[in-house]
């Protein structure tokens, strides 16, 4: 999002401003997901039983597994910032490598999870959902929309991490100029933050 530019004739560098910009972007994202949570709240309020039954169809193990690895990846990003601040390029790259691996793993899990659900007949417009009625249709509609948009953010995050790794290798990000890494980290924590709420709301309904 934030670009650091050697712009026109004066060089304007303001890391604090760049971070503020990133936070503002995060607020935008929070409101975007917030509205999805609002829809979830409304429809769950109107269809409590169907939502509970829908939740029982989801695999708690995969959900928990994805939660755990996403939390670990958040920690590795945070640690990579520490590594860069200490000037330890190699450690930073290793930590970011782990993060990237986890991001991909998360999507692979999601692929199999969705694949199994679709094969079973849970997808928008399917006959099965039609038979199970409105509440279940809404539950799975929201499930696909919300986890889908979340997965899209993971995908964007992967792109950002590849760019950051590249920049660290080229010494463009180093111990005195690492706001790109910090902002990418903030973005990644946001992705984690959303998942922290998606997980109990879809997988752990009781």
């Amino acid at each position, binding site marked *: 999002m934030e670009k650091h530019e050697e712009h026109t004739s004066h060089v304007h560098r303001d*890391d604090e401003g760049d971070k503020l910009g990133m936070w503002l972007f995060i607020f935008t994202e929070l409101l975007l997901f*917030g509205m999805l949570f609002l829809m979830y709240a409304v429809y769950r*309020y109107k269809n409590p039983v169907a939502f509970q039954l829908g939740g029982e169809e989801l695999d*708690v193990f995969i959900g928990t597994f994805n939660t755990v690895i996403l*939390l670990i990846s*958040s920690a590795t990003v*945070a640690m990579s910032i520490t590594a860069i601040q200490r000037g330890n390029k190699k450690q930073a790259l290793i930590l970011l490598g782990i993060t990237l691996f986890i991001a991909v793993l998360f999507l692979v899990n999601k692929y199999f999870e969705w694949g199994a659900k679709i094969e079973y007949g849970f997808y928008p417009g399917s006959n099965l959902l039609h038979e199970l009625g409105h509440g279940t249709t809404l539950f799975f509609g929201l499930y696909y929309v919300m986890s889908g948009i979340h997965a899209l953010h993971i995908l964007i995050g992967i792109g950002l991490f590849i760019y950051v790794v590249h920049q660290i290798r080229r010494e463009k990000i180093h111990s005195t100029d690492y706001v790109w890494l910090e902002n990418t980290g903030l973005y990644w*924590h946001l992705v984690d933050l959303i998942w922290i709420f998606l997980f109990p709301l879809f997988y*752990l309904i*009781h």
Partner: protein
Amino acid sequence: MSEEKQHISSYTSHILVLGALLVLTAASVAVTSLEMGKYNTLVAMLIAGTKAGIVLTWFMHLKFDNKIFAIFTVAVIVLFLLVLYVTFFDYSYR
């Protein structure tokens, strides 16, 4: 950040934070099997809220950054909760 004193979190602190988050996750899964009626959701949301707070405070560095970020973040969350509340003026009484 350039030459100003920038707070550097240690690896240990990050690991501790991660540990806390994992414990809370386990707790969240564990309490699901308890029968608490409508309080199940409440507890689940409280745990998720705590986890979110931890991520914001330490991983996202709000504790050490300019206070204005923390103030804005709280304001945005309050705004969202108010919108949610006002929406339910409709749905709770329909």
